[in-house]
């Protein structure tokens, strides 16, 4: 951690993910969202906390060559959006050759750290 403060909801999620207890917020129609949220982002309806699926699937990915300064020493890295049940996460894909990442790849979510600053973040690993 390079920050001297926590972001409630986000850091709580990372703590839970590291402990194998990740969760998301489910709306009345079964759609899912990431915390922190008080209500459904499009309808204002109430949300309920549900356990996050262990099994994710890469929906899309890119290999980033030109990063922000916060990830200067991380680049190049593969960034992906993956589907976990009704909710999606954005994270770096680790523990795999970048050339082997493809849409549809099965992954799990984990907590990793950036090379540049040690900041915690969501990472995906092949399942």
């Amino acid at each position, binding site marked *: 951690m390079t920050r001297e403060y926590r972001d409630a909801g986000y850091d709580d999620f990372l703590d839970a993910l590291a402990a194998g207890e990740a969760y998301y917020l489910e709306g009345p129609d079964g759609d899912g969202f990431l915390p922190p949220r008080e209500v459904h982002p499009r309808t204002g309806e109430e949300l309920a906390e549900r356990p996050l699926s262990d099994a994710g699937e890469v929906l899309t990915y890119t290999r980033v060559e030109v990063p*922000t300064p916060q990830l200067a020493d991380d680049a190049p890295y593969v960034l992906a959006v993956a589907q976990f049940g009704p909710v999606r996460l954005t994270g770096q894909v680790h523990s795999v050759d970048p050339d082997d990442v493809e849409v549809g790849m099965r992954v799990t979510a984990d907590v990793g750290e950036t090379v540049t600053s040690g900041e915690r973040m969501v990472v995906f690993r092949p399942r």
Partner: protein
Amino acid sequence: MTGPRVAGVGMTPFGKHESRTARDLFAAAAQEAIADAGVEHAAVEEVRFGNFMGEFAEGQGHMGPLAAEAAGVHAPSTRIESACASSGAAVRQGVMLVQSGQADVVLVGGAERMTNLSTADATEALAAAADAVWEVRPGMTFPGAYALMTQAYFAQYGGTSEDLAHIAVKNHANAVENDLAQFQRAIDVEDALEAPTVCSPFGLYDCSPISDGASAAVLVSEEYAAEHDLDAPVAITGSGQGTDSLALQARVSLTQTTATERAAAAAYEEAGIGPRDVDVAEVHDCFTHAEVLALEGLGFYDPGTAIEAAREGETTADGDLPVNLSGGLKAKGHPVGATGSAQISELTKLLEGRHVNSDAVSDSPGTVGLTHNAGGTVASAVVHVLEVVA
């Protein structure tokens, strides 16, 4: 009633002005717009000014008053921030002020200073338009975000880097004669395909440049234009705005832009037209594939079918629907807070027959143009319909 008239427009050349502050750039664009409108400075009743990264790039917030001062206008002034859609949203605020009867003369516009930053710092500043925790922490950049949408589109519908290259080639070709454009230089498909990778599948020519610049327009009520005998044949007949979840991951679709669809639906309804009535468009091509998303979101093409539009010549200057005759963000440049009102400036000139590329557009009454300005990964979208009414 035809809607607010675009009485005057102004725009600095887009490109590198690294020693000029945003206020300095806006002063130039605003003076040109006010002079073009033929109104007195004192006639301006409200100012709406778009800027995205003033705090980051030049340590400057609270730019509403600064913009009014720079313009020489002593009137209420507010900065509008909606990332790259900031000045499109500022134009829309001006339209609503005139439509509601709150004001008869409004100065709208925007400015951005970017090239004083390093590429890495500009990348960081632009990334602030994404979700700071869920997206930016693991490494989202703006080229990266649009690359994610592009890869999802390719997986769902197909498409190639060569298709994207044709969009860059088209927009560079349109900018060759435009003295306000950052890149007055033609490229070919091979140039685009052989350029260094920024983030797969995007090479350098898939990305709009880092730019400085400003743009402005004077909007007046129809009654004011008539009473003061202003030469203002272009009216804004429709205005719409759409909002989506900020984070790409939270969207219903990774390949369709709901905010654009909503903004377009509202603008079309107000103008009493549909997408097939549009003769010419300036759309938000911050990346080549962004033009594809725009053309589909605006209803010009069905989902999954606009990827070959440039390659097939349908959106080139001599095509059925010329898109980005100014050069677009890709070649004209993209000083982000100035882009939305620059689209208004360029399209107004195109429709009035006084743009270098006006030959591709009829200036006869009834000709319809459209602007589409997007913020972030299209979490914000603003659409305006402009018509030649006199």
